[in-house]
């Protein structure tokens, strides 16, 4: 888990020999800035933040610079280089444009599914783990119901009934993927609810929801963040699987859809599979590594004497 324990332990320290700064500034002395400083102090973090930012920027502002992704005006299966940086595809479309537009879809799906999963998981898992008892039993049953729901069948049915657009795909992925994260939240909340500082908070007369929000959830975050970052990668992969089955917006092909349509041309156009594949690989790797460093940074006691 710990990628760079040495930097993690050393970076927060230089803060403290500089007293006076905290109380005199307008910012609250207990502001949340310094964990970020240690987060960005790791070389692996910087590399993958750069990767992620470049890919996100490419998806975000790239469309202003690339050619029309649906114009079939160019020669077919042109290898990368020259006028077309990533070559052209089997219909003679500029592949760079297609990868850039595909990134918009894939990144949107990945991150919005992860965000939705995290939100649902924190609410359901937190309540179930902290309160226990009947509420716990009921919420675990609900989570199990959604966990055994076959995502692909659900997606097929929804696509048939409602049409397939991105909103529906994101919703279905979130509905089928949140229980995995919620389980981790619940287990952590159960453990933390027994700890001394929760009892202290109760003794200080704080209400349960307040304790859940400010004591239980922040301390449950490290493993939850890692699980959520994995969700980004899995959502991108599942979305490409769905795209392969034809569930997806054919007008806006994602990286997964590009990868799947490249299958039949793997001999004539290796670049058709390579570039979207690399993009998926890099994004999934980056979010996992960043999730791991987030874990190390926001758990101030990790690797130290508690």
């Amino acid at each position, binding site marked *: 888990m710990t990628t760079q324990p040495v930097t993690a332990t050393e970076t927060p320290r230089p803060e403290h020999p500089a007293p006076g700064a905290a109380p005199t500034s307008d910012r609250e002395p207990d502001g949340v800035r310094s964990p970020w400083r240690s987060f960005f102090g790791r070389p692996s973090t910087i590399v993958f933040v750069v990767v992620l930012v470049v890919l996100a920027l490419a998806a975000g502002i790239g469309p202003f610079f690339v050619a029309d992704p649906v114009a079939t005006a160019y020669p077919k299966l042109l290898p990368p280089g020259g006028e077309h940086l990533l070559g052209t595809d089997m219909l003679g479309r500029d592949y760079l444009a297609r990868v850039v537009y595909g990134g918009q879809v894939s990144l949107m799906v990945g991150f919005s599914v992860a965000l939705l999963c995290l939100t649902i998981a924190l609410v359901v898992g937190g309540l179930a783990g902290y309160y226990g008892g009947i509420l716990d039993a009921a919420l675990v049953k609900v989570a199990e119901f959604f966990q055994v729901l076959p995502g692909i069948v659900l997606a097929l049915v929804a696509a048939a009934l409602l049409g397939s657009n991105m909103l529906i795909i994101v919703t279905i992925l979130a509905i089928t993927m949140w229980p995995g994260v919620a389980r981790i939240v619940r287990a952590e909340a159960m453990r933390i609810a027994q700890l001394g500082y929760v009892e202290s908070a109760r*003794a200080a007369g704080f209400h349960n929801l307040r304790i859940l929000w400010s004591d239980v959830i922040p301390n449950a975050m490290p493993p939850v963040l890692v699980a959520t970052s994995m969700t980004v990668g899995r959502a991108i992969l599942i979305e490409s699987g769905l795209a392969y089955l034809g569930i997806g917006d054919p007008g806006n092909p994602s990286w997964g859809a590009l990868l799947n349509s490249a299958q039949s041309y793997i001999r004539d156009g290796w670049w058709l599979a390579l570039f979207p594949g690399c993009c998926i690989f890099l994004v999934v790797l980056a979010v996992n590594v960043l999730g791991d460093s987030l874990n190390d940074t926001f*758990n101030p006691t990790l690797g130290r004497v508690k």
Partner: protein
Amino acid sequence: MSAPGTPPLVAVEDLRVVLPTGHRTEVEAVRKVSLVVHDGERVGIVGESGSGKSVTARAVAGLLPTSPRVRVTGSIRFAGQELVGAGPEAWHTIRRERVGMIFQDPLTSLNPTMRIGRQVGESLPGERDRRARTEKVHEYLRQAGLENPDRIAAAFPHELSGGMRQRVLIAIAIAKSPSLVVADEPTTALDATVQQRVLRTLDDTVSELRTSLVLISHDLAVVAGMTDRIYVMYAGHIVEEGPTDRVLEDPQHAYTRALLRSVRSLTDEDTELYSIPPALRRELTAEVTGAA
């Protein structure tokens, strides 16, 4: 001490607490305990492990587990208000405004993801202005004997030593200006030299604020210097109570005498370590179960 006529700050009468120990079994952890704490009074509760002193304190703070198998009967009145059977709102108010708790283990009693300043600030009643809040947090940290309060306030709990953390807990407990501070074995997790200093701090702050104190300890030496009155507990039962000096100098009950003797055998040289003889144990058990 309170003027005659006004009710004492805490009045516990015939308190019984039954706790589940297994699937079908249960134990009567506290049997018919009655005790009072007056305004500004410092009261000690001593007894060995399992004598029910912590359970009594938890019952008074309403911190026993909320299971239907945990049964609390009798009466706990806080400033005249009956709390046994009271709703959660009454408890919340009491805990939020009137009682400060200091627990045994300072190492786990602070939220590791929150800076000290915020944890102390959370228990300040209704101070909205951020700067005034910070000022007050520093003031309470200083009062709890912590130098450099601005540095401490910006630190996370794991960056402080055990003694410093216990001082932070003292600061948190006094920050709400409570009428009662309950300290449950506040120094057992600390080593002997730090223990002394932390106890002195607790003593000073409590005396300065004229707050009542309930100090729970198995260590008679700790209780001796810091309390006006003590209760000696054995097996969920109060076997002796009285002014601290009187109880320590002229103990009336056989158990208190045995307890004092075992402490002295620790400090005096040339004495063999004394432990309570089995015959006295049997006698005590008979007395307690008979009385309960």
